[in-house]
């Protein structure tokens, strides 16, 4: 008896007939003719008869993806995984990421009215398995496609670490065209998935004149609008809601209405074809992000310093504090050439270490204030900056200057 066989299983006075499904444990899982799966425990009385061998549980051939309209803008879709397109994994019974541009276009035919798509799979991994090297590979792929004439690039991405990738691309690429990251919070194998609205709005942004790295996801719980978030300002703020993505310390770039496909900008943005394409994907990956908590041991700083780490972002309390116990360790690390950036676990607001004694001691120890940068963005930026330079002053200056919209000069109300 193999997966896909049609079998009859007699157990006691009951007979089940159906297709053998991949098992989730030691029980046999059978898909009955009425569509239900049931688990059957094999025992001495169980008699299995194979009725038809090898009926493959194959996916039906896809309807071919709609052909692109050559008159429309050319948009590249680069797949990296995540739930913008997913299938059921029979082995584990879990939803896993699977995709191809054909899959996406046949699932969302509306896209074909917006752009002429072309795409490829860069890699297919779960968002949580992403690494810095993957950001670099992705940045090169984006640059390639722009060089080849793409009028916009869409990157489909798992939502968990999408904002790290968005930040990385924001620093690595100066772009003349829109680069849009998109995903879905509810798996694409369900009729209610947010993937369609997100993908359509993302395609709209990719064909707009917003030549920045942005994240386009649901604005609210409803399927009406998407927000366009700047790649260095966005954070996933909810585990499961459709409107999990929010801009912190800055307004979003704008909003896309799903129904009429209109973009409503909220402020300034970099326009299409204003800057030349530049790719600088180098990263110093020996960087880490550490969260302080009351009573936390400074050993973590020593550990990273001893392991030869070049940069460290601390997520401190309030205005940017750690306990006084940490200060000697930080000073030792800075003295040994590590660059330490202070950010706040408040997320909202700006770091300021000149108000309290501990802060002033941190500054004396050589800590660089991370302004109003998100901790994760500061980490990615530090990796990028440390690949450019090692000079303490230069690092400080770059970290405190807005390179890709990640820092505001003024903290505005609301």
């Amino acid at each position, binding site marked *: 008896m193999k997966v896909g066989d049609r079998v009859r299983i007699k157990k006691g006075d*009951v007979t089940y007939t159906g297709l053998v499904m991949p098992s989730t444990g030691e029980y046999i899982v059978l898909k009955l003719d009425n569509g*239900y*799966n*049931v*688990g059957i425990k094999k025992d001495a009385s169980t008699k299995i008869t194979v009725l038809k061998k090898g009926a493959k549980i194959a996916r*039906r051939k896809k309807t071919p993806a709609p052909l692109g309209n050559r008159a429309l803008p050319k948009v590249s879709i680069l797949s990296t995984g995540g739930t913008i397109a997913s299938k*059921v994994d029979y082995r584990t019974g879990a939803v896993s990421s699977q995709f191809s541009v054909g899959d996406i276009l046949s699932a969302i035919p509306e896209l074909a009215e917006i752009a002429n798509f072309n795409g490829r799979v860069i890699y297919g991994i779960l968002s949580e398995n992403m690494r810095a090297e993957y950001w670099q590979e992705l940045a090169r792929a984006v640059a390639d496609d722009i060089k080849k004439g793409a009028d916009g690039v869409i990157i489909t991405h798992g939502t968990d670490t999408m904002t790290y990738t968005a930040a990385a691309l924001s620093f690595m690429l100066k772009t003349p065209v829109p680069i849009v990251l998109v995903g879905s919070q*509810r798996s694409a194998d369900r009729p209610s998935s947010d993937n369609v609205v997100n993908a359509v709005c993302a395609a709209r942004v990719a064909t707009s004149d917003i030549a920045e790295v942005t994240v386009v996801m649901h604005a609210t719980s*409803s399927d*009406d609008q998407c927000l366009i978030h700047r790649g260095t300002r966005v954070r996933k703020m909810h585990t499961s809601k459709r409107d999990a993505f929010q801009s912190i310390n800055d307004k979003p770039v704008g909003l896309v209405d799903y129904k009429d496909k209109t973009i409503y900008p909220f402020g300034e943005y970099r326009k299409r074809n204003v800057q030349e394409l530049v790719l600088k994907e180098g990263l110093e990956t020996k960087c880490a992000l550490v969260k302080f908590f009351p009573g936390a041991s400074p050993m973590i700083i020593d550990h990273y310093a001893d392991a030869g780490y070049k940069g460290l972002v601390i997520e401190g309390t309030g205005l940017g504090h750690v306990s006084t116990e940490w200060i000697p360790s930080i000073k030792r690390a800075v003295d040994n050439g590590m660059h330490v950036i202070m950010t706040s676990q408040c997320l909202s607001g700006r770091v300021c270490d000149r108000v309290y004694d501990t802060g002033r001691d941190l500054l004396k120890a050589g800590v660089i204030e991370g302004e109003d940068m998100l901790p994760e963005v500061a980490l990615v930026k530090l990796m990028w900056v440390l690949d450019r330079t090692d000079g303490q002053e230069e690092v400080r200056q770059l970290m405190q200057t807005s390179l890709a919209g990640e820092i505001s000069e003024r903290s505005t109300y609301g």
Partner: protein
Amino acid sequence: MVDYRRLGLKAGLEVHQQLDTANKLFCGCPTKLRDNNESIYEIRRHLHMTESELGEIDRAVMEAVQVQRRFVYKGYDTTCLVENDEEPPQVLNQEALDIALEVALLLNMRVVDETHTMRKIVIDGSNTSGFQRTALIASNGNIVVDGSAVRIDILCLEEEAAQRIPDDGRTYSLDRLGIPLVEIGTAPDITTPEQARSVAEHIGIILRSTGKVKRGIGTIRQDVNISIAEGARVEIKGVQTLNLIKSIVENEVTRQVGLLRIREELKKRGAMRIKADVIGVSDIFANTRCTVIETALKSGIVMAVNLPNFGGLVGREIQSNRTLGAEFSDHAKRFGVGRIFHTDELPKYGITKTEVNTVRKKVRAGPDDCVVIAAGDEGQVRSALNAVVKRANEALDGVPEETRRALPDGNSAYMRPLPGAARMYPETDVLPVRISKKRLKRIKRSLPELFQERKERYMKDYGLNEELAELITRSANAPLFEQIMRLNISPTLVVMTLEATTSELKRRGVPVQNLEAMHFIELFELICANKIAKEGIPRVLEGLANNPDKTAEEIASEAGLQTLDRVAIESVIERIVQSKRAFIKEKGYGVIGPLMGVVMLELRGKVDGKLVSTILKEKVSDIIKERG
């Protein structure tokens, strides 16, 4: 009399019963229905077509996608992100699973070793997720109703759908979504409409015997599958009352017979498959008196399609007051066209004979043909008329397999094609649940008493005759009966009071729904204490039903029903007997009957008739025996 056996009637039932659990099936929200006005938020959603596990798109799903897919949901402080489809479901509610297992055992079913929650695609908007979560719990059961066995094929535990808000096609209320539900499906073993009713009733009684299901309108719904020989399986959904089941089955048989006759007639006429040729006929109606068409023409178009050989058949009744044309109209309505006209019913509705003839000519209709006309938005009208042609072509084959909606008059209207098995795929967010032998044993030990056993016990313990034992066994009042029987009182009187007296009062318009267990217990305590006579029962109950806040004793005293003691009774009888002395002397014992009437007129409801009769006999006998 219709010979259902000869027609080859086969019917099966699907009973859906809400369970009375504390929480919903996949979240911690209460299973509480709310007033729509209490809604505190609203979300707007789109549903998109999806591929099922085997990559086939179900035909029912396909059709729903083409019709409508934008929905609004109203939420409450008693709904959460799970109902909003914004959070993965929690583990399967174990209380609900226990109830489902209990029902499965009562239906003599075989429980699966491990239950897998599935996603059943439903994209009519009634589930925010676009699917209903459902798990098969048991199969292979059977019940015996009125001497014949009916197999119970499946029992599933599933989540109740959101409720559509009336008068608004696309707004749903989230309060009902997720309430646990058992779905019980019988095999098509039912062969008469009457049997369909009895089987549904029997299953309903078994469900209620657990004491763990919701009661009241909408908490139990029946779907009926019906086919006759040469006909086709038709599923009629949403039958809310038992009484309707019989007429639903009868009417569907009539309908299938009617459709088969139409098929024969079409065959005789040599009818061929129709190719839809929808033609614009707006010009013909430029000066029409038909207000429907006139209004539609302001922004739309009139179109017509010829149905060769359908003349006279479209207007033919296939259910009482429903013609084949009404079926065409059901299909057309799905595309937003409010009304279609067909030449079998014209001229009428302001459409003139000249207009009809001109249209017939334009679509080249022959004398045996029927022309269908619709007006409105061009796209909608075209789709509607194409749907009419599709349905007409199905008439060539006889009865189309489909899902229909029960109408309150016992008829039904088209709803959607029958769903196929491809609607299901695993709900990967919910882990499979193993059902241990230990768990089944525990549930078996605490199974509610089966009716047969209970009936026998009532006959043995209380000396009820079989008829009364059966009556109270199947009644929702059975637990109350047993409670009252702790008093030293006649079981027959209690059963008659609980069942016959209350239904008699109900017939007279007394609000007996106000009567509670406490009222009955107080009443019988009064009777036991000889404080009122059993003749006073109806009046006390009537009083309590009208004033449920009062006690039985208060009612009895207000109505002057309290029993007189023997001395008082004797004095009343003595007075009457003395006034009739001459009469008694003359007629002897023959006066007892008439005198009884006179006495009871004065004492009715306050005394036990037997006691009156005894005293009266003594007094009369005293007078007769007097000398002189």
